[in-house]
Each structure stands twice: as C-alpha cells, then as structure tokens.
C-alpha cells in the first residue's frame, strides 16, 4: 500500500445559514495574519499584527525589533541575524503597550474569561513548550476571534506567526499549546 492514499472521504460542509453563522462569531477587529521573519520573532510578528489592526505606526518587523530591543540597526542584514532575539515578559508588555496603552498582562483563567476578553480585542497568548533544553522555549500567538461550532463547542481563531495561515483551535488545544506545553501568560485588550 503506498503512503499516499488515492481517495479521500468527503467532508460535507455544515448547513448553517449565513446569518446564523455571523451571529455565532465574536466580532473582533480584523487582525491581518503575518508570519514571523526570523526564528525568534514570534513576539515581533504579534506586535506587527496588532499595529496593523489598529492602523498605527505600520513599522516593519525589523523596525519593531530595533525599537523594542534598543538596537542601532536591525534591518540591514538580509536574515536580520543581528536582532533575532527573544523578548522577555516585561519587554513584550512594553512593546504591546507602545501600540495599545490599555493592554493588560495577566494569567489565563478559564474559557468564560477568554470569551469575555475577546470583546475588548485580541489576546496575545504565551505558550511554554514542554521538554525543552538549553533554556526556556516559549512562543506567542494572537487569538483574534471565536465562533460557535456544533454541540455548543467553540473554535478560537488564532494567528500563529510560525505557520503560513491562520488556524482555529478548541479551548483545550489553546491551553495545551497544541498538546506540546501550556498556555502560561496572556496580554489582553490588544
């Protein structure tokens, strides 16, 4: 048997009327999806998505890194190697508040809280991976909305800058960092 299967199993789309569909979604300002330009710039990409959503500054990712890291120049080298650095929690808070002064740093405290916070804007979520070596390994994604699925379940729209497109996750999947860790910190009102 080849590895690649020859035929699939058809997915029938759910027959939910458009009006119902719209009503089931939590309306959140449109956040464009951006990929991170370097390995450690998930935090930069998230700040860039927030900037674009609120139509402020419109800095490039290397300009954001330069400004937030206090570097002289992050944009000259083709791979941005000089500034491919992680942020720390305080630095991420400052970077987000430079765009959204009302941003709040907090801990994730349950799905009702998450639903409530989405009414105020996107949420930046810090995932801490399990089983790392050589120091802590974390990742930041932006939760930009939600919508109801069948049977009362909810899908959360996530802009994960490591991927190439937005995706949708259940709450359990958010909390478990896609089954590979834990959601340990959050920034709301962004």
């Amino acid at each position, binding site marked *: 048997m080849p590895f*690649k299967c020859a035929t699939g199993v058809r997915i029938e789309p759910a027959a939910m009327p458009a009006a119902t569909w719209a009503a089931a979604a939590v309306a959140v300002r449109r956040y464009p999806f951006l990929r991170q330009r370097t390995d450690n710039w998930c935090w930069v990409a998230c700040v860039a998505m927030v900037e674009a959503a609120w139509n402020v500054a419109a800095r490039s990712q290397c300009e954001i890194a330069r400004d937030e890291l206090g570097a002289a120049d992050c944009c000259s080298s083709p791979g941005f190697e000089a500034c491919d650095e992680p942020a720390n929690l305080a630095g991420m808070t400052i970077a987000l508040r430079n765009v959204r002064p009302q941003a709040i740093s907090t801990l994730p405290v349950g799905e009702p809280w998450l639903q409530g916070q989405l009414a105020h804007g996107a949420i930046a979520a810090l995932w801490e991976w399990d*089983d790392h070596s050589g*120091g802590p390994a974390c990742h930041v994604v932006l939760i930009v909305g939600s919508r109801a699925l069948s049977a009362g379940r909810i899908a959360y729209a996530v802009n994960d800058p490591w991927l190439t497109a937005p995706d949708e996750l259940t709450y359990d999947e958010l909390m478990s960092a896609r089954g590979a860790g834990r959601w340990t910190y959050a920034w709301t009102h962004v």
Partner: protein
Amino acid sequence: MNAPPARDDWDVERIRGPAASGLRSWFPSPDLPDGVRLEVAECLPVFAVAATRFHDAGLDGLLSSLTWDGRWHVQIHRDGVAHGYARAVETPAGLRILSCSRDGLAADIDAALDAADRALPDDTHFALLVEVKPMAISVLMLVPHDQGTCWVVVLRVPHRIAFLPRGMLIGAGAFLERMRAVPVVRGVDPV
C-alpha cells in the same frame, strides 16, 4: 504510549470517516463556494519527542522516546489538492477534532509522501509525523515494520538551520546527528 501504534491500529479508515463527519461544523457552507469538494485524505499519528533526547540518546533510544498521546494529523484536500489539515484525538466518546488549519504543512506532507512512495515502493514502512516544538521542527518519519532502515523527511525547520535539508529522504541516523546541533527557539523568555 511509548511506541508507534501497533500495526492493528494502523487502520486510517477508522479515523478518516469519523474525521470527515467531525469536520462538518468546522466548514460552514457560507465559507465554501458551490462545487468545491473537501476530503479527508491521509491520517498520520502525531508523535512528540523531547528536545533533550537528541543530545543523550542513540537512534534506538530516540525511537523508543517517541511519545504518542492519541493525536492524529488529518490531511484535508480541496478538489484533490492539499488544502489544510486538522488535528484530532480518539476518545472513548469517539474522534474529537482539536484544531483546523490551512497552514502549508499540508502541502509539505503531500510532497513528502510522494517522495516516500517513489523511494520506498514496497510496503515495508509506516509513516509518522514527529514534532519537536521547542526546536520548531516537524518531520515525516518512516519506520520499518520490523527490520530495516528508518527514514526521515524534514518538513519544517527554523530559517537558519541550513544543515537540515527540507523535503529530502535522509537516514534517521544522519538526522539524529544533525539534530544535535539545533538550538531551541526561544521566542519570549518567561522571566
């Protein structure tokens, strides 16, 4: 579970049908133009491995360190072409969809499966998706049913890791050797 799923479990049909059913509410009709055909294609078990194992384990140790929590990667095709993927887990109540993505990983997996079919035409291996999240690495691992060589196709790798070529079939030993030089991706330090 600390081993690949038993051969008896390697029946993707028991995943594909329920997955197609479970994915219905993730794809409402207003989102899809008329005539578009979405299908569940390949299903791969998703394994994880601790980043530390690349430094302290040999190949046998690495394979025995793969952990599976019941999670499946479900390829989604649109009119026969990779469109995205879902992640699902088997529960006593049935298959539960965890997430759905249009990420390009689906196309990378299709290309890797094509390469594996060309290189390994006999039915001597089965395919696993192995993820090392702290290193931001995803690979297709082709594990022999009993005796034989374990092969790897690197699907995703950090930008600056040029010594792990994407899309090529490489021996698992060579893969392990190269992985020892891969640093973790830090993103944000939690301090």
